[in-house]
């Protein structure tokens, strides 16, 4: 097998395929970074990818084949798995479960987002009841077999599945998290019978809780055939054009995997796009010399928040996608419906609301002239002068300030009896409050103080809201990479390989249990070492982290606690747990029993990092391209407009001002300062918090 780690003297590509745009970042042989943005082609996604690479090759003045053959690493991020779930066009799935327990998937533990909204039905169940088939078998709570797998029940289920033409089968048997032998037995029967796509819950997500484990296995089975076909086709067409290394893809946990591994567990790709921001944050952290960052990436429909704390990104054990529960470890990306296209309005009693609904690409904000009547955040930005009236981005959209004014006036300003500008500023404040609360909710959960963090603004809209959000959170500075609009694609070029190995292990924390735990640990460590070795990583490039999932007896949430690979000191383990517990929850429960619930090994294969290329721009003076009236703090200010690429390095400018970059717009409020560093990135220093 060709090895993953690269030598560092060839091209590197990061390709982030989103619903609307495909972002491509090319790192050339001299370590210069190039950004390309093209429209996505949702019906044939791999064509969009090739088109973007062709564009990048042309920009380098070489042929596609030359670029690909000299490419040492292509990392891909894709929303294909996510869209498959959201659009409901996944596979026809059958579920094999334990007799008597086939309905946990549709009961969903009775969980609904908002109890009061009782008239709203659930999103459709992914496997109808007649395709959820109970097998005669049972493992008890200690992992002991009480009923053997009845093969006739498997065979008859199989013939029904074939007759119903299910493409993909999920297997989730009762208590398989503690003993997976029955699932493996059923899996091998299915394999022998030629079922193409089989997901075993105990292999994918060996966690306690039949609902969550079933839901995860079903989601995986649901997206497997589509995602598999797409990734295989993409890898083949890249190979056909000269690419020789394995194609890599970003997983939910921000690590990369080869396509052949990912295809078996495509549920690990549901957050493939946003998770790649982690790589970018690591680079920013090194470049800017700051190890506590909060990233806020704002696009058209939503804002993704990631907290990078003391050099590490928080990991969550579960997330949901389109109201379906996925119990897989993932980068803790908190997404809220707050973006440029987010819609505003007033209720019957005169209260302003903003979001979470958005205007989407069609019809889009009112000012696009695409027929949208509802005022959006972008309309508010335009009305206040932060965006320029006229052609926008590549010129395919023309912003019309009068349409924006009309929408805001009729639906917000007039009903509230306030000025158009006050209404627009209000829409922006309320949208920003959503972002601020999303960040606060995350930091509360993590027990960290946002005032000690640098805010990183990304996405097309992030740098327009950065100053205001930073002030409310008490952050003193904002870092704005000049490639803010393609942050995730850049992140892909610097992402490490990551394998996560996990076992459920229930035991009271004590001298005796440590001994049995050590054995399982050693086993997982060996597995991790072997995986990385197979992929060609040498000792220097390998890193293995070991963790225990711990909690007080009776608690349901555990805490992941990093521990030494040799489990020698009980006192250390207890202390580490209690320090984190107190930080997160405000207390420690002295003398209470601590339980081990799981064992994890994280195996990393590190790639050589790209640092931002240093720019050389000298002997130029910062000159605005023009000025316009921009609204800040209840009045319009005459405000200079700069073009990002013409600004000299290490210059400091005082707000109010606006900087237009290729993929984003930066707003600097009065009394704030912005500095261009020697990489051409921006540091915004905000005045005292409001």
């Amino acid at each position, binding site marked *: 097998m060709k090895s993953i780690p690269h030598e560092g003297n060839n091209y590197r590509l990061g390709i982030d395929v989103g619903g609307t745009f495909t972002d491509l970042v090319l790192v050339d042989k001299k370590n210069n970074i190039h950004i390309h943005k093209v429209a996505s082609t949702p019906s044939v996604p791999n064509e969009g990818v090739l088109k973007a690479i062709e564009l990048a090759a042309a920009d380098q003045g070489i042929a596609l084949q030359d670029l690909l053959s000299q490419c040492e690493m292509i990392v891909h991020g894709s929303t294909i798995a996510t869209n498959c779930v959201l659009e409901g066009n996944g596979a026809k799935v059958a579920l094999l479960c334990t007799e008597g327990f086939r309905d946990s998937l549709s009961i969903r533990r009775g969980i609904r987002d908002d109890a009061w909204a009782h008239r709203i039905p659930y999103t459709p169940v992914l496997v109808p009841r007649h395709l959820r088939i109970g097998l005669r078998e049972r493992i008890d709570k200690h992992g002991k077999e009480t009923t053997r797998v009845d093969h006739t029940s498997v065979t008859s289920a199989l013939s029904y599945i074939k007759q119903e033409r299910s493409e993909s089968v999920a297997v989730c048997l009762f208590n398989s998290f503690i003993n997976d032998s029955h699932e493996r037995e059923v899996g091998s029967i299915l394999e022998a019978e030629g079922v193409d796509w089989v997901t075993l819950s105990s292999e994918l997500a060996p966690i306690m809780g039949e609902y969550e484990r079933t839901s995860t296995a079903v989601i995986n089975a649901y997206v497997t055939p589509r995602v598999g076909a797409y990734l295989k086709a993409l890898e083949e067409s890249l190979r056909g054009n000269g690419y020789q290394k394995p194609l890599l893809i970003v997983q939910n946990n921000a690590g990369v995997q080869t396509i052949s591994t990912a295809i078996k567990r495509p549920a690990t790709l549901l957050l493939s796009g946003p998770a790649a921001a982690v790589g970018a944050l690591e680079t920013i952290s090194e470049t800017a010399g700051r190890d506590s960052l909060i990233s806020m990436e704002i696009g058209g429909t939503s804002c993704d928040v990631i907290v990078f704390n003391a050099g590490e990104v928080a990991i969550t054990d579960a997330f949901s996608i389109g109201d379906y529960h996925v119990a897989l470890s993932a980068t803790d990306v908190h997404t809220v419906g707050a973006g440029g296209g987010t819609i505003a309005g007033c209720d019957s009693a*005169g209260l302003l609301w903003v979001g979470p609904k958005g205007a989407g690409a069609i019809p889009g904000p009112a000012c696009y002239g695409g027929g949208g009547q509802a005022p959006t955040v972008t309309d508010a930005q335009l009305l206040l002068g932060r965006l320029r009236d006229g052609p926008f981005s590549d010129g395919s959209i023309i912003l019309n300030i009068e349409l924006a004014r009309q929408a805001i006036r009729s639906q917000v300003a007039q009903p509230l009896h306030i000025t158009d500008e006050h209404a627009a500023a209000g829409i922006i404040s309320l949208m920003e409050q959503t972002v601020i609360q999303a960040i606060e909710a995350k930091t509360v959960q993590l027990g960290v103080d946002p005032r000690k963090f640098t805010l990183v603004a990304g996405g097309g809209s992030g740098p327009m809201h950065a100053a205001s959000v930073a002030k409310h959170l008490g952050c003193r500075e904002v870092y704005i990479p000049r490639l803010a609009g393609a942050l995730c694609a850049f992140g892909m070029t610097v992402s490490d390989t990551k394998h996560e190995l996990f076992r459920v292990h229930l035991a009271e924390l004590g001298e005796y249990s440590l001994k049995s735990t050590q054995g399982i640990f050693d086993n997982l460590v060996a597995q991790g070492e072997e995986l990385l070795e197979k992929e060609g990583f040498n000792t220097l490039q390998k890193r293995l982290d070991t963790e225990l999932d711990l909690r007080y007896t009776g608690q349901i949430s555990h805490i992941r606690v990093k521990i030494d690979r040799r489990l020698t000191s009980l006192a250390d383990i207890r202390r580490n747990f209690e320090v984190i517990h107190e930080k997160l929850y405000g207390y420690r429960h002295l003398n209470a029993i601590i339980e081990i619930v799981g064992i994890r090994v994280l195996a990393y294969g590190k790639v050589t990092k790209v640092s931002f290329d240093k720019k050389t721009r000298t002997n130029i003076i910062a000159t605005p391209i023009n000025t316009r009236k921009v609204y800040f703090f209840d009045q319009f200010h005459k405000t200079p407009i700069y073009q990002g690429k013409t600004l000299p390095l290490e210059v400091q400018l005082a707000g109010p001002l606006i900087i237009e970059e290729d993929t984003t717009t930066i707003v600097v409020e009065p009394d704030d300062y912005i500095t261009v560093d020697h990489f051409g990135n921006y540091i915004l220093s905000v005045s005292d918090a409001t």
Partner: protein
Amino acid sequence: MERDPIALALTQSRLDHIARTMGQTMTRTAHSPIFNQSHDFSCFITDPHGELISQADGIPIHTGGGDLIVKAILKTFTHDIAQGDVFLSSDPYTAGGNHLPDWVITRPVFVADRCIAFVCNRAHQSDIGGGVAGTYNPAATEIFQEGIRLPVLKLIEKKRTRDDIWQLLLLNTRCPELLEGDLLSMLGSTKVGAKAIQDFAGELGVGHFFCYLEGILNHAEQRMRDALMALPDGTYHALETSDNDCFSETVTKFQVKLIKKSDWLIVDFTGTDAQIKGFKNSSFSNTRSSVYVAITSFLGHTIPRNAGTYRPIEIVAPLGSVVNPKPPAPLTMCTVLPAHEIIHVCWMALAKADPARSCAGWGKICHWNMAGKNPDGSTYVMYHWGALPASGAVDGRDGFDQIGPLNSLGNLVVPNCETYEQIYPVHFLKHELRKDAAGAGKFRGGTGVNYEVRVTGDAEYAYRSEGKRTPSGYGIGGGKIGAPGHVIATLDDGKDIETPQFGVGQHGPLTLKISSPAGGGWGNPKERSPALVLSDVRDGLVSIQAAEHDYGVAINSDGKSIDIPHTQQLRDQ
């Protein structure tokens, strides 16, 4: 002071965010499954007068009573509320409580020397003493048999926890470890809330803070008035019943008269039966909450819920009746029953005012609780929530097949069987949907479940089988009633135990089978889409016979397709 509409919108969302943050803190730190698995608690915030300003976190049945807790504190400790004090209370007759197991931690929030708000956490404790482990004593005939009664008391005085009271609390529970962990968690969550309120008031300035609090109350009031204006004026009567008083098969009537005029509403329970012998009496706090749940869930979930919302609603609950009993009537069951009957009867009356938005009935609970000893000698309490009933249908949605009780609009999480096997001495045999139980309708009721579990040790049981005799999920607009529940407990020697609907019993290892009550249907079943009837048949939820008989849909012998001409014929009849 004139209020800026933008700042007003920001205030509402900020307060709700604070209440939710308190809830998250609690979920992640609490020790009892009742909190961390099933969210049986609520965090709320009041102004200095005890008026509710946010309850974004929490379960619906806790909605209406928070102010009474704080008002009782204000009455008891008028000039003796200082920074660093924290209060604890529960008694429904003297301390503004709803029922004894729900303990409320209340922390006043100060800026300088001025109390600007109260942040509170109301949470159902695992055990508070009383006649039966686990807080529910179906044999109770007086409140004294239901556990320790907490008047308004200072748990923490000027930052010093009162160890004497702490010890008193721990002495009066069968689960001191759980109770202690949960109390710490409640205290932690209110601490988080108090800090956030202080920051917020600091940013606005205290004067502005109060001004905007009044603003959000006024706004919610206006929203409720708008919603009431849209209902036709009139007087609407309804009657709902319970078929027992916990000791005998006797009918208890819940009678309501809604008088709706312009933008106000009177909810009058005159004619409702007198308080009963058993523990299904409703404290006034609980009755008020139940009425609020019924009205807001009917009129729309987007109406904000604070003290302003309920200004246009007046409740008449005769003293000494089952909806406003006199001491020492027992009442621990009230948050579930008769909350269920009160919500039902209000929904039935509202359906007469606005049939399009009518809601079919939800099945009443019939699962038991049990308690026993862990191997280490400590006490466990297990709720058989895996046997929760189904909900009724509304226009556009079938009933939820299994969901939390109506009092919380289903907001109680059904536990995983696997998790409960790890915690309790049980081995599960079945947890699946029922067939031919759901009330038929254009939108059918929820099915309910068949639940079977083997309990491997000795245990004490609290029977709570309200929904097992009389069907409870009423149909509406031509929809049919859902099937009642069944409960059978079989000892290892094969003998079934005869059990009353309510009561207490000690039993050895047994197998408990519960079929949970189904929900009612909405609208004429003959108008249900034949494709949906077919998929229910394929899914084994409706039999071929019932498809034909109840829905007028003929299914071909392959069980997979519709006999269209025959269906036409059946539906034309």
